[in-house]
């Protein structure tokens, strides 16, 4: 069932974001072409400003649309009238939340990738048209990268993997916090949006207060220092850096789990569809 839900979630985003990604990459190539043409005095200078602006606007559009779709996938599709369809499906509330969270994380990653690909496409287009030997420009950075990669140890690989997991957990936390705020905000019939914003603000304040208390009592730092005092294995997960990342994963994971429970509770026990 989760797979089926994910399929529809991906479609909901894909129909808007995939064409935008295509437009972004096409614009980046055209921008590269026009910048090269201007630099080679083939075209007037005013184009120098025009295409990059268009590229910038589409870049912002991709970012904004990703966030708008993220919010709408919950607000409109679960809390709005489409919620009558979604909550009538023979799936648990947890599966509905999971599908949205997983899909949103995937699309955020894809949007970042689209940006990277478009920036690369722009750079490669300019390099190709610069009249210089492309190999002379591209080879040195790649040689640097290859050299760095050859020096990577298994410990570094573990740390990189842990670092990626931390990023994903933080992304999931940011998203589920928004969901929880909207789930609470939906209780206030006439003022759902204001309610969601107030709930979100409340969460951030609560988090700041708790972090301050933990910091002031020194409990967290004492505990972590005690942990860090254990003999470390400089290789493997128990290396100091990797261990710190692991603590972050657990810590952020717990906070995300709390927001998940809040979201689940208000959807399962206090559903208030339009």
């Amino acid at each position: 069932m989760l797979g089926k839900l994910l399929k529809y979630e991906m479609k909901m985003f894909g129909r808007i974001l995939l064409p935008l990604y295509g437009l972004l990459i096409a614009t980046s190539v055209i921008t590269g072409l026009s910048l090269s043409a201007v630099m080679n005095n083939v075209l007037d200078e005013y184009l120098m400003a025009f295409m990059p602006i268009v590229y910038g606007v589409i870049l912002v559009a991709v970012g904004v649309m990703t966030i708008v779709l993220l919010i709408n996938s919950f607000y409109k599709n679960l809390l709005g009238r489409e919620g009558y369809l979604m909550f009538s499906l023979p799936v648990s509330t947890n599966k509905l939340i999971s599908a949205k969270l997983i899909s949103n994380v995937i699309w955020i990653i894809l949007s970042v990738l689209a940006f990277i690909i478009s920036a690369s496409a722009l750079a490669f287009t300019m390099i190709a048209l610069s009249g210089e030997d492309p190999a002379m420009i591209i080879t040195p950075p790649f040689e640097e990268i290859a050299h760095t990669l050859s020096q990577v140890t298994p410990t570094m690989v573990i740390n990189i993997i842990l670092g990626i997991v931390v990023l994903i957990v933080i992304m999931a936390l940011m998203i589920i916090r928004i969901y929880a705020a909207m789930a609470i905000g939906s209780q206030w019939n006439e003022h759902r949006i204001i309610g969601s914003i107030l709930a979100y603000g409340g969460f951030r304040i609560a988090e700041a207060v708790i972090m301050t208390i933990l910091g002031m009592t020194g409990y967290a730092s004492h505990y972590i220092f005690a942990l860090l005092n254990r003999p470390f294995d400089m290789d493997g997960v128990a290396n100091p850096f990797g261990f710190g990342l692991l603590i972050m994963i657990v810590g952020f994971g717990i906070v995300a789990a709390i927001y998940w429970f809040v979201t689940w509770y208000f959807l399962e026990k206090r559903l208030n569809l339009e």
Partner: protein
Amino acid sequence: MALIECKDVSKNYGSTVSLKQVNLSLEAGRIVGLLGPNGSGKTTLIKLLEHLLVPTSGLITLNELAPGAKTKSFVSYLPDRDFLPDWMKVNDLIKMYKDFYDDFDEKIAREMLNSLHIDCTKSIKKLSKGNREKVQLILTMSRQAKIYLLDEPIAGVDPAARDYILHTIVSHYNENAVVLISTHLINDVESILDEVVFLKEGEVVLHENADALREKTGMSVDEYFREVFKC
């Protein structure tokens, strides 16, 4: 064995009491009218059965199960409003229903859509209001469900469409199922009802066989309803 069983079900919204100690037992093979004026608790009761709400107190069982993800696999629910994503095409929705509901019969759905000349390649937002409502009804009634919950299925449609909808309900529900139709348009629906339940200010004030009620009172259900709910 009752397919739908409510024992002392109450639902409050803060200090507002929407349903009060509802006791109801509905068996298979019936089309039941849930009748009452606006605000009497009909939609609340239906939402409780569909697990879109949870009762404040009392117990609900559907085919001896508590309402939840499992019961949604054999309960087919038609809300009293537009609920389909308007960017999806009718074909997409047929695929979606087929994906999620094992009891969905695509052949029946397409037959009904074709007979109404509804273009399945169109998106929901491009359909007229009447056609949108028909698509919603067709998707709901194309499931071979055990329980059908239809909340005001004819309220927003023209008289000709009403006849079509009622005919669809009667000819497409399976006889091992119970159909619960909530409405305040009793005159239109009366002819297809086997049983009637009157809901007044959140309480069940009557639950009878429709024919027996007509014989007892010498009135149509609509006329008797107007008596009971006289302002």
